[in-house]
């Protein structure tokens, strides 16, 4: 049975649809309304407020904090200065990815890590002989994600401090309605956005204050279904959907590496040793088996598939995450699309996919499986970089 987040009293009040799911042991709202469209458009044209408390949260403190994180993360955490947040992933000894998340540097001996899965044991195991304390603070803190083009205006009204000049992937200690919060300019929508950390006891006060500030900006509570569309547009991978943590893979072939997931940019190979370094160096030299790409459906062909059954084209009502095969032009399966969505803002049908290296180049046409009227069909797709939506405001 899932537990309630510290914001539950409010989210349950707004959740007219009763559409909940279990996210990492918490009740999480899928969509507040019977469909998620308003919430999606709030993320893209106004702002949406989402309870992301179920993210696993760890506090790493002590003089060897940096040492520990540098050892675990594929990214060089030495480069992360106080007041910065960084996105990173971490691997096992074979360079296979375990999870991805963020590391916030509150000070040189004080970090916070978020992850999709519980990693306490992994961190602890690698902290032997280090002067470091690792604490699971998941149930101590609530996090609100305030995302969308108007999130800056809303937060400027709600929070103390200089929110307006808070840079991309920077953090600031602040207050909201006299409660202490940490605000990071991060998110999972690929848009301008912030995440607000607060202690459980302050959660409802903070929630109310943000909603109140958002009144004049069409802020609405938003759920996971809308987020899923947004994150696919942004090309953000999801653990358990687009890849599987090596810890959970029964067979080796299901494991992935950062390079295979287009996360090579977050791997710093030439530095002090870190877990998986040798394997990743070898992969970098020899090449990766898979490549993570974006796929854009050929709309005219898609429409025709349905027209053959005398049906209008049916776009998926929600983002999907049931992997489907991808073929080359000779009909040979060369990969799988792991998630996808109709993008209302781009007016395109999109998918994220893993394709075997050597079978394509960017811009190629491949074929994806589509089911129309219970029949399997193939629809041409164009291979592109897995970042479909990337507005300037995200970084500005």
């Amino acid at each position, binding site marked *: 049975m899932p537990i309630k987040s510290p914001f539950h009293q409010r989210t349950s009040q707004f959740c007219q649809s009763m559409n909940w799911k279990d996210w990492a042991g918490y009740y999480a709202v899928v969509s507040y*309304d019977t*469909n998620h469209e308003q919430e999606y*458009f709030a993320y893209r044209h106004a702002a949406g407020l989402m309870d992301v408390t179920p993210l696993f949260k760890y506090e790493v403190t002590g003089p060897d904090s940096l040492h520990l994180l540098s050892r675990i993360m594929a990214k060089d955490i030495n480069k992360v200065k106080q007041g910065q947040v960084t996105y990173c992933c971490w691997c096992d000894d074979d360079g296979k990815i375990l999870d991805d998340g963020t590391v916030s540097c509150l000070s040189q001996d004080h970090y916070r890590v978020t992850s999709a899965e519980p990693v306490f044991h992994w961190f602890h195991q690698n902290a032997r002989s280090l002067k470091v304390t690792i604490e699971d603070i998941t149930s101590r803190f609530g996090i609100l994600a305030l995302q969308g083009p108007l999130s800056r*205006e809303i937060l400027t009204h709600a929070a103390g401090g200089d929110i307006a000049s808070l840079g991309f992937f920077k953090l600031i200690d602040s207050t909201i309605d006299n409660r202490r919060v940490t605000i990071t300019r991060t998110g999972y929508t690929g848009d301008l956005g912030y995440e607000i950390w607060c202690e459980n006891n302050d959660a409802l006060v903070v929630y109310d204050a943000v909603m109140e500030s958002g009144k004049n900006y069409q802020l609405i509570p938003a759920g996971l279904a809308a987020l899923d569309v947004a994150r696919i547009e942004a090309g953000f991978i999801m653990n358990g959907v687009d890849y599987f943590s090596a810890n959970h893979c029964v067979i080796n072939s299901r494991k992935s590496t950062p390079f295979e997931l287009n996360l090579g940019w977050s791997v710093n190979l030439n530095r002090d040793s870190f877990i998986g370094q040798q394997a990743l160096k070898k992969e970098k030299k020899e090449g990766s088996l898979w490549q993570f790409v974006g796929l854009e459906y050929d709309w005219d062909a898609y429409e025709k598939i349905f027209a053959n059954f005398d049906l209008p084209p049916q776009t998926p009502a929600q983002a999907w995450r049931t992997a489907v095969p991808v073929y080359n032009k000779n009909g040979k399966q060369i990969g799988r699309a792991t998630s996808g969505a109709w993008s*209302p803002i*781009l*007016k*395109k049908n999109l998918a994220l996919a893993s394709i075997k290296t050597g079978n394509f180049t960017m811009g190629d046409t491949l074929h994806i499986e589509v089911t129309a009227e219970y029949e399997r069909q193939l629809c041409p797709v164009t291979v592109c970089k897995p970042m479909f939506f990337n507005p300037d405001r995200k970084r500005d």
Partner: protein
Amino acid sequence: MIKFVSKPKTSSYDAVIVGGGHNGLVCAAYLAKAGKKVLVVEKRPLVGGAAVSEQIAPGFIFSTFSYVVSLFRPHIIRQLNLVKHGLQIIPMETTYNPIPGDKGLVRWADAGRTRHEIARFSQKDASLYSEFGLAMGRLSRFTKNIIDTTAPQPASLNPKELFKLLKMGKIFKNFDGNMRYLNVKLMTMSAIDFLQEWFESEPLLPSMAGSGIIGTFMGIRSPGTAYVLLHHYMGEIDGAYRAWGFSIGGTGQISLACAKSALSFGAEIITDAAVDHIDIKNGRARGIVLENGDDIKAGTVISCLDPNRTFLKMVGEHELSENFITQIKRYKNRGSSGKVNLALSRLPNFRDGRPGQHHLKGDITIAPTIDYVERAYDEAKYGEYSKRPFLNIVIPSLSDPSVAPPGKHVLSAFVQYAPYNIKEGADKWPDKREAFGNAVIDTIEEYCPDIRSCIIHKQIISPWDIEKMTGLTEGNIFQGELSLEQLAFLRPVAEWSRYRTPISKLWMCGSGTHPGGGLMGAPGELAAKTMLTEGGV
């Protein structure tokens, strides 16, 4: 933001398009994409014609005239890269019919919820509502086929034309008997009679019927209005047949996206450049002459203006046959609607006891009873604006905060009826404008008693103003009524429904051509494609 100039770069073009309405821009983009040297000439400082966004009061951006989008052709969006050029559409999910002292009726995107709402008024209607939607959806596919191609020519023996008719016949053949009868009824009945074959309750009936009269000078009891209902089931947003949407930043953003697309393909656009007349010699268009006397030569002249303005003002009667002139003069413009745009200091209170704002995010229709809407028409028949008009209200700032300052709102009310020819004479509209606006605000006040205290600024637009501002004859928003006798192979007149005109090298591309008005882009696209395949340019 694009800045337009008022002087063309050169004095000669493959094609000059008179009027920078959205169809003219779409046409320009397709022609430029095909490598033609194209110039669009617009008299106003901004492009878009009746699809413009204007800052009427500081911080308040209005879709001055056309205010929602439904039928903009998805393939045009793709072919002209309009998303890349800034087009963004948010679907409108609700239709709200307020009733004083009641919760009113809200039709939601959620079918179950809508059923419960309608059941408050009629169990029967509630159970039939989705069935009706399905039937209309099926019928609209027949019509969709018509709007995406040039008008079929039933009198032609050209094999291509016969094939097109055959294809339509095939769709018709695939209908079962009931659907065929339904189609015939739809083409001949009044909106309300047609709907009453299905439904029994108010406010469902008048609110649905209302969509059949928008932009026409007919009442919900006038035969032929049922057909327009279908347009509401043809709306395609995101590939799916569905409702209406707001353009982010107002409908002007759609025009701007079309303009940017045209520019990206190499077209030229000039604004603040009013055309005096089309230069014609020996029955052939040679170019245009601007009001400032500038002469611009063109291989082809394309008019995006309405047929009346094109032929009677830009061409001149002396260049045309008596028969053609008579037909153009018979073509019905009959402006019947006005617009009241309000800048609001806060959201007005509908006093309906409904929590939140969600039900106000779509369109709000003031049409409480059948008699109310028909009475509104009665007044118009005798040259008066309706004292209690049919209103279609939207508050786009609830979905798109970019159009109003924080916490403030823009309200746009489409008002019917406001006849162009009031009994005092159309030119007396300026004296009547304020009273007309007050009638609209009085009407809204019956539902939102606090509306007056919310108003910061108001813009009242009569059909006379529409004509003055945009050039649309009699202020008809569709460049001529969308009544059956003025559609398809009869638009604008028989024999000239394929964008050609009796003047050689003069073509048409506006809403006065097939498939007609509304923010569709289809006339512009089909005109361009026809010209390109038939050597018109």
